[in-house]
């Protein structure tokens, strides 16, 4: 039956896929929500470590996670891929028989800025689950790999890279990421290159494990039916006494928004011609398009809120400035997804869509024209937003925000996002809603004028490049020489 669950994300020409960036969508709760919503309890346990407890006894389930602030962006120079390799090691070669016997699961998730070790199971098994989590973390302190195991791991990863082309939006997202995150530690994206994997050594593996134990910040979360206070105290003690040590000088781990913002500069637009890059990707009749640009970051919550509002208004809903005209005049795409994604030191806005290879030109042309018209109006100060539009987009945004907090996992991941981006832990849950609620028309106009348009537009298209080139040429859109998807690796 699971196979039957063919989720059609939405049922109209341009589906509403408002996919706000993981971090930016974090921040608060609706005021209606705040009144009857149980708050997570946060406690600082040691210098760089905090614990979050979130009690939900409705179902007999628990999740325990330890998150370390060391992600793929912290990979040392020339050792790109080491965090991914470690994650892959834990997920494939290190199954815990005690947890398996309980039907429980354990996973290690590697992200841009963090690595998380998690266990999940029935609350009745919470003691074994907690032990399993710390047994896993203890592997970081040992020398878990020998040369043969490392070589096998690398070999399997290399073989898996061959399947990148089978992920419909894999190549287009990878290249967009590399171009939009140029000059930042995020340039690599989550997918490794062949060369970097081949050069990783046992020493790199051990060094990474040591660096992880000295991450700038460490969080433990206990959620679900987490039981009596005594158990929570035991879990806190294990976390405190595990042996996370403050970072030694010169060791790579973690990054602060402020530090990275100073280091990285956003290239400024030199002309209005977008950079269009094509990727030859096998996959039938469909081409995939990712289009967007870098944005300057701000520590002001109101400016961040303005960015989220603009994303929603510009492309995030069926009535938005890009979706509505496309649906009415050029219904050639099944969906369009708008994303605003933020990491410390990197903020990007983009849309992701797809269409037949032959229709790429008209679709890209229509999106470009919508952006150019808007940009021209903004720069000529002719651009107006009425109060009704301001209010309706706010309502839509806030309503979907509450809906997106429908599980303990989403609440916790948003809390962690807020911690990493530096705009408050649990105290920030209301601030985000207030910031959206208080936005004014002049603030939006100022944001559009001063922050939104300015960086060069990046367009990446993957598919049958012969047909795509013909279509783009017909629309007089310039493009660079196509690359093969294998060249990305």
């Amino acid at each position, binding site marked *: 039956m*699971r196979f039957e669950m063919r989720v059609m994300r939405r*049922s109209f020409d341009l589906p509403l896929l408002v996919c706000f960036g993981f971090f930016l969508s974090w921040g608060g709760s609706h005021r209606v929500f705040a009144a009857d919503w149980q708050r997570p309890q946060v406690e600082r346990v040691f210098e760089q470590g905090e614990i979050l407890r979130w009690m939900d006894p409705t179902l007999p389930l628990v999740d325990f996670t330890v998150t370390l602030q060391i992600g793929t962006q912290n990979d040392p120079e020339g050792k790109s891929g080491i965090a991914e390799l470690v994650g892959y090691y834990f997920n494939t070669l290190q199954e815990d028989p005690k947890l398996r016997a309980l039907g429980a699961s354990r996973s290690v998730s590697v992200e841009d800025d963090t690595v998380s070790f998690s266990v999940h199971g*029935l609350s009745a098994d919470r003691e074994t689950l907690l032990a399993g989590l710390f047994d896993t973390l203890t592997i970081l302190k040992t020398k878990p790999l020998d040369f043969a195991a490392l070589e096998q791991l690398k070999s399997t990863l290399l073989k898996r890279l061959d*399947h990148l082309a089978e992920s419909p939006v894999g190549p287009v997202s990878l290249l967009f990421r590399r171009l939009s995150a140029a000059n930042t530690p995020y340039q690599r994206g989550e997918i490794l290159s062949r060369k970097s994997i081949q050069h990783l050594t046992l020493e790199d593996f051990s060094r990474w494990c040591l660096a992880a134990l000295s991450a700038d910040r460490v969080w433990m979360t206990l959620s679900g039916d987490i039981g009596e206070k005594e158990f929570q105290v035991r879990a806190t003690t294990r976390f405190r006494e595990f042996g996370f040590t403050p970072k030694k000088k010169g060791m790579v781990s973690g990054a602060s928004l402020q530090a990275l913002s100073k280091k990285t500069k956003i290239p400024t637009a030199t002309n209005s011609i977008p950079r269009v890059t094509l990727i030859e990707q096998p*996959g039938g009749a469909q081409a995939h398009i990712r289009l967007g640009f870098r944005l300057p970051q701000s520590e002001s919550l109101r400016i961040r809120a303005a960015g989220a509002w603009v994303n929603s208004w510009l492309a995030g809903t069926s009535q938005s400035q890009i979706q509505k005209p496309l649906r009415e005049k050029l219904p050639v795409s*099944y969906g369009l997804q708008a994303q605003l994604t933020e990491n410390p030191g990197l903020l990007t806005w983009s849309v992701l869509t797809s269409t037949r290879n032959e229709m790429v030109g008209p679709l890209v042309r229509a999106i470009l024209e919508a952006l150019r018209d808007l940009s021209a109006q903004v720069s000529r100060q002719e651009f107006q937003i009425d109060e009704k539009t301001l209010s309706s987009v706010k309502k839509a945004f806030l309503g979907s925000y509450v809906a997106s907090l*429908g*599980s303990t996992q989403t609440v916790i991941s948003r809390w962690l996002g807020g911690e990493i981006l530096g705009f408050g832990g649990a105290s920030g849950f209301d601030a985000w809603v207030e910031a959206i609620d208080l936005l004014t028309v002049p603030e939006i106009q100022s944001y559009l004028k001063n922050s939104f348009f300015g960086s060069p537009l990046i367009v990446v298209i993957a598919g049958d490049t012969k047909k795509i080139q013909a279509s783009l040429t017909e629309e007089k859109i310039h493009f660079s020489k196509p690359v093969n998807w294998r060249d990305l690796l």
Partner: protein
Amino acid sequence: LSMLEKMRVLLTLFWVVPSAFWMSCKGEFANIGVRHVVVTHQLPNGLNLLMVEDPRLPLVAFQTWVRVGSAGDPPGQTGMAALFEHLYFRGTPRRSGEEIFSFLESKGIESNALTTRDFVVFSHLFMPEHLDGILELESDRLMGLEITEERVKQDRLLMLESRRLRVEASAEARMGEALWSLAYRTHPYRWPVGGYPPDVLNLTEATVREYYKKIYRPSNVTLVIAGKIQPKEVAQKISERYSSMPKLPPYSMEKNVEPPQTEERRLVIRENAVSPRVSIGYHIPSAAEDDSFAMDLVASILFEGASSRVPKELIDRRRLLLAANGMAHTPRHPGLFVAHLVLQSAATEAEVQTVEEAFYKILLEMSRTEVSGEELKAATSRLTLELLDSARSLQGLAQFLGTIQAVLGVTSGFTRDFSKYTQVKKSDIRRVVERYLEPNNRSVVVLLPEKAKAHRLKGEP
């Protein structure tokens, strides 16, 4: 693993309270620790209601379940059920499609639609204050969808766009489609949920209107509402909105029994793909039969986790595969146990044969030797846990209730299946593997890489 089966067992973990009795089964399930109460109700016109009050969050999940899926598509009109996922957002005489979108988006309501072989479901997630607006919209759409030639034409093209995106661009999806088509000769499970493209292009206003009249009636529909609600009050509101719809007989699918398969069926596809793949399907019982529980456990023992039998032997030890997955699909009618094996990119045709033989050897071993008690216990625990996981969100909880009602057709007595997984014995595992996973009952689709040619269908612009 069969989602339906998980749902069925999960439902046994909930207290079911028919509104006529309001009786509690608390004593029976107190040890499980699940605190939901399911309230059932039926309007005189046949419309079913399933409600769960869950006040943890200020949210409500509202789902309209139409208990006819793609298997009920009229012959030559495949894709009909799925078309309604799109048409449902086009408008009624009282509101245009734009007004529907505006209403949903201005309130921040998350909406979605889904079609399977057995049902279509339209779902919303919203704050409780919008319940009246949703009831008005949903009753309006169920009673008076506006169907025009122009709208049907737009949505036909949209369906083909969706197909290109979701099926044609995915080797696994293409193989899945081919496998079901190969395994079923007469039963409508053989056709794709989204329909055959030539059939989709032939759907017209007249045929769509006729289908809507026959299927979208109270006797074929279940409403599932979960979240911050008061069931009695919601039942009253629903009665006010939906009672004017007449009582009409429910849809009854023509009896269509798939004849037993007597020999292996095989299809080799040469397509644009990175590496060879093999999909293998075996006919198995429907969700209503007890053996479906054992088949779920077989799938878990074979495929779930790095140390389950297939990954351990074919990925880790023999390094023949890059990936392997499998599950028992147990829908309303007899289903299919499916294994999907992905070889390495440089694998030859001879290695494809080696992989197949190695996989069949694992099955043969299971049919001759009983699995260990630990293996069975771990699989049972995994299924229970996955089942509970699926009900963690309001939408997931509503989907559980809706699926069980839509597929098995029951509105009460969910508790009778309680502990079916734990009743499965080691000897049952051996028996079902021997009985169902045998060579003459299998269909095999092999995909070998070759550059494919994209093509446009007649009738497309």
